[in-house]
């Protein structure tokens, strides 16, 4: 004897959902069967991948080729058909330097300043980001009180728009900002952080770490939680030192996650723009002018914009990113092979 009123009335929620789904499946089944018979299993895979490949082709590959075409053109006209073909002139202009270590000796000095600044930024930011994210993940992986709260605290800045991040830190660091107010209240001399070349660069690095570390911490935390607990218990029973546990268990087993983080941080660092643009505008002088801002200024913001030069610079930036990513992937593969041999 049934007591569920829904069953008594003959209503089933699961059945209500299943019916239309079954109807749709019945509808598409005959053509799909026909397709499989005609093209085989391989053809079906292509069929299912096609929509994604189309989207990728239209929104990623096509713009890439258009961008490359732009980089081979000159003039100030905006649309490709109106532009003059100049071959590799834009690349030659970017590389026209008597000394690559001295931006002032280059025809496009601001490009090389931006390259130098970006290289420094990547080196500092990627290193610090990985160290800080890893340390945070290790701490959050412990049995802390209110652990969920602390995880949320570290993740919160990731949810903020980069413009908001830039503005918040500008209000803190500017001449009459919160930091100087605090220093003044404590009897210290205020400092104009954003007018100081070293401090503004440090601020750019620090702010970008603050804004994004939560995301990378989360990836590393997921990796840490996937490491079997019994490995740690065995190490503890053997009386292994914590440093050795970290180096011999945690780090090797976290390597796949760490690699993902390194690639993502690296790409993000080379592309740095939004929050730093709001925070420092690339100043003081050109001390925080990074490659993406150079491309933006050249292609969009300057009077008499030069889309060809901006496109050439972005192709070079993309090439560097591809090389770095491939290098890391090959390093990780060789690491895996070595691990396998052992």
């Amino acid at each position, binding site marked *: 004897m049934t007591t569920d009123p829904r069953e008594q009335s003959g209503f089933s929620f699961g059945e209500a959902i299943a019916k239309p789904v079954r109807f749709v499946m019945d509808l598409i089944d005959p053509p799909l069967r026909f397709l499989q018979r005609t093209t085989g299993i391989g053809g079906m895979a292509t069929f299912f991948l096609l929509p994604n490949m189309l989207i990728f082709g239209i929104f990623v590959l096509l713009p890439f080729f258009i961008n490359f075409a732009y980089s081979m053109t000159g003039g*100030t006209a905006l649309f490709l058909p109106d532009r003059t073909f100049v071959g590799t002139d834009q690349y030659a202009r970017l590389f026209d330097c008597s000394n690559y270590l001295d931006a002032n000796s280059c025809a496009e000095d601001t490009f090389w300043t931006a390259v130098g600044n970006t290289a420094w930024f990547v080196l500092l930011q990627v290193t610090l980001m990985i160290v800080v994210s890893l340390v945070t993940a290790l701490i959050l992986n412990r049995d802390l009180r209110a652990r969920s709260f602390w995880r949320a605290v570290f993740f919160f800045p990731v949810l903020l728009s980069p413009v908001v991040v830039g503005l918040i830190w500008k209000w803190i660091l500017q001449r009459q900002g919160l930091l100087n107010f605090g220093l003044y209240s404590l009897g210290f001399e205020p400092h104009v952080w954003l*007018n100081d070349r070293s401090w503004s660069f440090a601020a750019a690095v620090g702010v970008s770490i603050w804004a994004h570390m939560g995301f990378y911490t989360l990836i590393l935390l997921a990796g840490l939680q996937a490491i079997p607990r019994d490995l740690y218990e065995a190490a503890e029973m053997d009386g292994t030192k914590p440093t050795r546990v970290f180096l011999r268990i945690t780090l090797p087993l976290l390597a796949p996650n760490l690699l993902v983080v390194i690639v993502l941080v690296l790409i993000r660092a080379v592309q740095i723009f939004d929050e730093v643009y709001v925070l420092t505008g690339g*100043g003081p*002088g050109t001390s925080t002018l990074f490659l993406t801002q150079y491309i933006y200024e050249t292609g969009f*913001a*300057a009077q*008499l914009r030069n889309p060809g030069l901006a496109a050439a610079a972005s192709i070079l930036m993309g090439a560097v990113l591809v090389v770095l990513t491939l290098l890391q992937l090959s390093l990780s593969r060789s690491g895996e092979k070595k691990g396998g041999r052992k």
Partner: protein
Amino acid sequence: MIKTSTMLAAFAVGLLASTAAMAGDVRIMWYSDGVEGEVLKDLLDRFMKENPGINVILDNVAYGVVREQLPVQLEAGDGPDIARVTNLKAMSQHWLDLRPLVADASYWDKNFGGQADWMRPDGTNQISGFMTQITLTGGFANKTLFDQAGVALPPKDATWDDWAKAAKQVADSQQVSFAMALDRSGHRLTGPNLSYGSNYIGADGKPAPLDEGAKNFITKFVGWVTDGTMSKDVWVSAAGSTYRAAADDFINGQLVYYYSGSWQVPNFSTKIGTNFDWVATGSPCGPANCTGMPGGAGLVAVKYTKNPKEVAKVMDYLAREDIVKEFSERTLFLPAHKGLLEKGLDFKTDDQQAKAALNNFVTSTSSLSDIAQKLPGWYWSDTYYGALVTRVSQAAAGELNLEEAFARIDADIATKVKDSGR
């Protein structure tokens, strides 16, 4: 089946109705610095009551949209029917010639002819639109700080050196962050450059290399930034040609002397109120003259419009003397309308400081040099301004010495001229 047919028919009628409405639509792309968007909306509502067949849609956008997105739309042969624009000459090939469409072209020539060349292709007599406001660069002094320091305000014909000396004295005495500030803009730097005898326009109409006049003022200016007389926050704080103003520092009483322009008057009137006394000083003098730089925003018709007759009607209405008078008096903008300027205006404000400042700027229009009047209609102005800002700020930040900065300015401009193929 009948239901579906009915729905399709209704959809078709709706589509036709909306197309018919679009035939009378006039879309305006507008940006606001203050209350002018609200004033314009009010004026347009009245226009639509008088002309029920024309539907004017006012798109209020950020200035950045006009500066960065409008050129792209225009290059694609698209965009609004009318737009409020500042870089009028550089995009003049996209403006509609209103001459055959307006009710009385002679009225336009007589009253707006002075600035018509700023917005039309070289060598034509096209009527592209009119200036919604004429601006003039000039200085503002915090009179209360001068009074408290016991330093007299420099006289009307005071030089840049006189103002720097007096402002420094006041800043030191009153413990103010900076004595002077000048907006991070090539247009703003050009006023003093011209007062030092500079001329950007070469004999062939193309940009001339930076001359002694400009070099002399820039040398002085960089020295002031380096020794802290001029605000570092404005010029050193960004790269490229990014615009930075020091209006907030002046409003907060942290600046003794601020070189900006007439468009700041409504802003100061609203935000400073009775906090302190301020005065407009006109442009300080250099060895050659005491000129400021004219400029402003123009309302232009776009030639890709589908409704040119309706556009001309809207433009005729907005250019009417009584409408320009009301717009200017309510927004506290200096009008471009010649007849109106001769008759005078009664700015709608109780703020006597603002009224005095506006009158000061009206008077200062008489001290504009010939070259200052030519520059807004010169195709290469913005190219020159961009190079000036980028390189002078690098010199002020200590990245380039002055000779390197001067060489870079010339090289940047030469490259742009070459790139443009003109």
